[in-house]
């Protein structure tokens, strides 16, 4: 088996849980296709209490996965939110039951384009139906049905995870006690669609992409996917963060070499980001998930008025943005807050001052963690969950 085919892992080889849902009823996708049966791969942390009232659904971002607080099965790196998940931490696994599922269309065990199409016996590739954020959330709701969880104590997530949070609150208000969309927006902006398109074109124009059937050809569009990641990665940072980290420093050389090697440290860093990403992510999944983000527009789905998405909502919201995030700038969060105010929803809103850009939600930002912690403590009190140390 060559290297790229070995990377085509069956779901069973991933650590954590996998459940097959459906076929009855199938998942009716926004594009009109009925999908079923479908698989959802997920991780859990902590214990569900007897009242089943302490479940928190963590929604991951575009290139995230269900390994919130476990070493990544491919890279071995710590989970993407391991800083705040664990006993006594903000997402306290001694008090809460955390669930994180790989999104539909993903490549870490949930059904996606990397899987075998039962109709053909070959990987779906581009014949996989196009999915939306709504589809991802409906699939997660089916997972909760399977787990016997009627209402989530909280649903939270950053970036595309925040899209899912908003979709959850709008589609299943009775199943969500509190919701925390972080560094997110109620719709994907033209600029963000544009960046996604650059990434997709890099993949689609890689000869090794093979019309989406690269697995069958024993190839993998490494170069296209790496360039997509490099372009996207710039949008996750900020000018200040890049300057602080790299400035104009040269890479392992005292002076210019007058060539096109990675002359500057920032180039070397981006190339590294690109090359490590291809080991853990599938190019077709990248196409499908970025497309799902592009389609997201909660207002349009509710008659053009964002507030309509939340009319009469019982959900307690905490909206969080970061001052240097130019991918999902604060004004996008403010638009969500204005819509929630318009229906007199219970909402908190904090813009955390940070120079770390969009990625700040994944990093050590004490003010962000204090905000999230305080909101969860307040919500837990209203939900009647025991205080810290009382359970």
């Amino acid at each position, binding site marked *: 088996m060559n290297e790229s085919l070995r990377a085509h892992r069956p779901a069973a080889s991933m650590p954590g849980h996998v459940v097959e849902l459906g076929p009855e009823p199938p998942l009716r996708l926004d594009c009109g296709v009925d999908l079923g049966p479908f698989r959802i791969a997920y991780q859990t942390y902590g214990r569900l209490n007897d009242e089943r009232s302490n479940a928190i659904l963590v929604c991951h971002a575009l290139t995230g996965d269900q390994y919130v607080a476990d070493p990544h099965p491919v890279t071995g790196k710590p989970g993407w939110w391991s800083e705040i998940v664990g006993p006594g931490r903000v997402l306290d696994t001694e008090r809460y039951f955390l669930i994180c599922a790989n999104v539909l269309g993903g490549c870490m065990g949930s059904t996606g384009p990397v899987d075998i199409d039962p109709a053909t016996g070959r990987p779906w590739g581009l014949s996989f139906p196009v999915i939306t954020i709504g589809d991802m959330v409906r699939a997660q709701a089916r997972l909760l049905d399977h787990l016997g969880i009627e209402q989530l104590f909280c649903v939270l997530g950053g970036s595309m995870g925040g899209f899912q949070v908003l979709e959850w609150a709008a589609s299943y208000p009775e199943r969500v006690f509190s919701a925390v969309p972080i560094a997110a927006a109620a719709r994907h902006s033209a600029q963000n669609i544009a960046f996604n398109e650059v990434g997709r074109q890099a993949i689609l124009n890689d000869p090794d992409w093979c019309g989406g059937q690269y697995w069958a050809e024993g190839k993998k569009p490494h170069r296209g996917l790496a360039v997509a990641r490099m372009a996207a990665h710039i949008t996750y940072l900020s000018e200040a963060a890049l300057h602080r980290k790299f400035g104009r420093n040269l890479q392992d050389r005292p002076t210019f070499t007058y060539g096109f090697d990675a002359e500057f440290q920032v180039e070397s860093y981006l190339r590294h980001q690109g090359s490590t990403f291809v080991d853990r992510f599938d190019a077709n999944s990248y196409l499908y998930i970025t497309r799902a983000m592009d389609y997201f527009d909660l207002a349009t789905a509710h008659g053009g008025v964002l507030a309509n998405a939340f009319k009469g909502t019982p959900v307690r919201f905490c909206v969080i943005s970061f001052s240097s995030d130019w991918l999902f700038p604060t004004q996008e969060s403010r638009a969500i807050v204005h819509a929630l*105010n318009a229906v007199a929803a219970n*909402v908190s809103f*904090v813009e955390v001052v940070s120079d770390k850009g969009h990625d700040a939600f994944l990093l050590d930002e004490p*003010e962000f963690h*204090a905000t999230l912690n*305080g909101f969860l*403590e*307040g*919500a837990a009190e209203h939900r009647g969950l025991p205080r810290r140390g009382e359970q």
Partner: protein
Amino acid sequence: MSRPRRVNGHSIRVDLKWIAEMIEADSRVLDVGCGDGMLLDYLYHTRNVDGRGIELSMAGVSNAVSHGLSVIQGDADTDLKDYPTGAFDYVILSQTLQAMREPRRVLDHMLRIGRRGVVSFPNFGHWTIRVGLALRGRMPVTRTLANHWYDTPNIHLCTIKDFVALCDELGITIEKGLSLDGEGRLQAFDGRGALANLLGAQALFLLSRPGR
């Protein structure tokens, strides 16, 4: 990190306590310019109030939210228009109105969003201010007006008499008027009258609008 710093809310600024006295238990309250949420926290713990806050300063909002309060970072001058009519039982402007760019519009919104409004402000008619201005010829710096003219957030100061006149003009009913001294202690006379205008350091009004 644990919730909250003032669980029973027993320590609270005296003037805030008088505001709390005006709020019925189990009501819905919007505190405009809520600072770090001290009043909201007190109302929740003593009166089971469902409280929300708006605050301009990031530090205040961050502090309030990290203590479990529902507070948003926002500007009352621009953000009050988003709230639906009749969404709250009370809208509170505690030492906030005089810092608004458009106090009249804020008052209008206040009594549209809330069934009642509670307003407190420093009284510019207080005798020390009058005397100081007359004799020293300088802008006042007092316990209730602690800033110098060049760094004060208070851009629309008024006297009690001015405020009562504005309420008349806007068709606002003053249901209750209290006059407080510089320490926030209640004074015995009617908070709407000439004595209050001369001797009150702060004024506190419960407002409503007929037909609401």
